[in-house]
């Protein structure tokens, strides 16, 4: 096999770079939206509020048990049927594929974040929240001042895992024609016959992106353990997390 990486200084390199930019944008947008969904849904499930419980369950279980790439196709092909017209128009102006990919990834990973958040809240000793309520703190105050700070220590490792999964899943967006890295690799392979070189480069780039996410997670973990002394919560977390994945 003769590989020639110097060709990357030409067009293929430019394509990969533009793909990288799209991948990062996609990951950031989807992450932001997914975290919001995750915190809201996770907290709702933790509260166990009768009225919304079935709705939360259906959303989370459905998203977790179906392939992200099919969800992507679903949003792409049927957005115009299910989304309200103004939202759809707004997305179309944005680059419609990109919007569909953000929504699909956000809903998919939001369900996983929700489970992480719920498990984190469950790891906080029950007495903590009750004590806060007993001291007269409001519900949201107790949540914000007592439950979340203790839960977040526990959350970081599985959160990092989920976020790396999200970064990796951005590659699925090529299925609906988003011009991210994997899409650009396919183009280079099809039209320039430099598949192996391009594949090597984007593999390395994905590894770097994932390692950056892990590194940010470690920073956050270090910061939190310095500023929050929630040993108790960590001890419980150790029991609940096997292989970096939260059980129930």
């Amino acid at each position, binding site marked *: 096999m003769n590989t020639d990486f110097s060709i990357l200084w030409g067009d293929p390199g430019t394509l990969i770079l533009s793909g990288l930019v799209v991948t990062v944008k996609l990951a950031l947008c989807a992450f932001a939206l997914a975290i919001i969904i995750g915190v809201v849904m996770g907290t709702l499930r933790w509260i166990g509020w009768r009225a919304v419980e079935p709705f939360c369950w259906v959303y989370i279980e459905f998203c977790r048990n179906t392939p992200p790439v099919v*969800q992507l*196709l*679903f949003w792409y*092909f049927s957005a115009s049927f299910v989304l309200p017209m103004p939202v759809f128009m707004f997305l179309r102006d944005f680059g419609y594929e990109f919007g569909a990919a953000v929504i699909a990834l956000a809903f998919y990973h939001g369900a996983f974040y929700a489970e992480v958040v719920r498990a984190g809240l469950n790891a906080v000793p029950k007495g903590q929240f009750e004590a806060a309520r007993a001291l007269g703190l409001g519900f949201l105050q107790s949540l914000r001042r007592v439950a979340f700070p203790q839960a977040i220590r526990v959350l970081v490792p599985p959160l990092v895992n989920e976020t790396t999964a999200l970064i*990796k*899943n951005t590659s699925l967006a090529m299925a609906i024609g988003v011009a991210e890295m994997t899409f650009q*690799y396919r183009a280079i392979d099809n039209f320039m016959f430099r598949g*192996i070189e391009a594949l090597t480069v984007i593999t390395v780039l994905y590894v770097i992106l*994932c390692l950056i996410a892990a590194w940010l997670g470690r920073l956050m973990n270090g910061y939190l353990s310095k500023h929050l002394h929630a040993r108790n919560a960590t001890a419980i977390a150790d029991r609940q997390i096997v292989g970096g994945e939260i059980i129930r």
Partner: protein
Amino acid sequence: MMDNWARVWTPANWERLLVGDLFNRGEIGGLALTLCIGLLAIAGSTVIGAVVGIMRASDRKALNLPATLYVQSFRNVPLLILVFWAYFLPPVFGIQTSKFLSVLVALTLFTGAYIAEIVQGGIRSVAAANLEAARVLGLTPRQIQFWVVLPQAFFNMLPALAGRYVVSMKNTSLAFLIGLMDLTEIGKQIGARLMTSPVEVYLTILLIYFVVNRGLVMCLRLLENRQSFNRLFLRI
């Protein structure tokens, strides 16, 4: 609205979704192909994950290091990229491969890396005090490993393992991206032909995946009952 459903849920479409187009000619597709890839990958990755996970939990560098290398490199790359590697690399070395094999190999190696982490976590989750109790009874290290550590580890990791199996089953859907006729591809084709009812078509496919995966989880839940686990795996 009901029209749309009626147009999607025809017997012909269901047959295509479940077994593919060329079933009569001996080629499986659709859900059957999806299950085939998924279950084979689950079996293979469990074997790999068990071996690598035990290596990861070992204190010996010679075992630990290669295992760590494998896990770290496979976990940080998108599965889709691995599928492309598995498809384009073997021919370079003169090895024959097929689309089916590349998806299977990539999925197995990818999932194996995750299962290795679960196995390692499971082994580490067995309390040290419990091992001491076993040692005090005069059990040898090997007996302790086999009768005390591994069964507890296995039991502790069942929920995480079930989660991984489901992910693996979902990931089979990447097969359509390199042109296999799996459930997703068939669904996509039906959607393309009907044009006007994508919501119904894709909801149908999602529903099939959902049922399969929930079924898988339910089966594994049976094991999570300590009594049946004990009867099945511990013939003391």
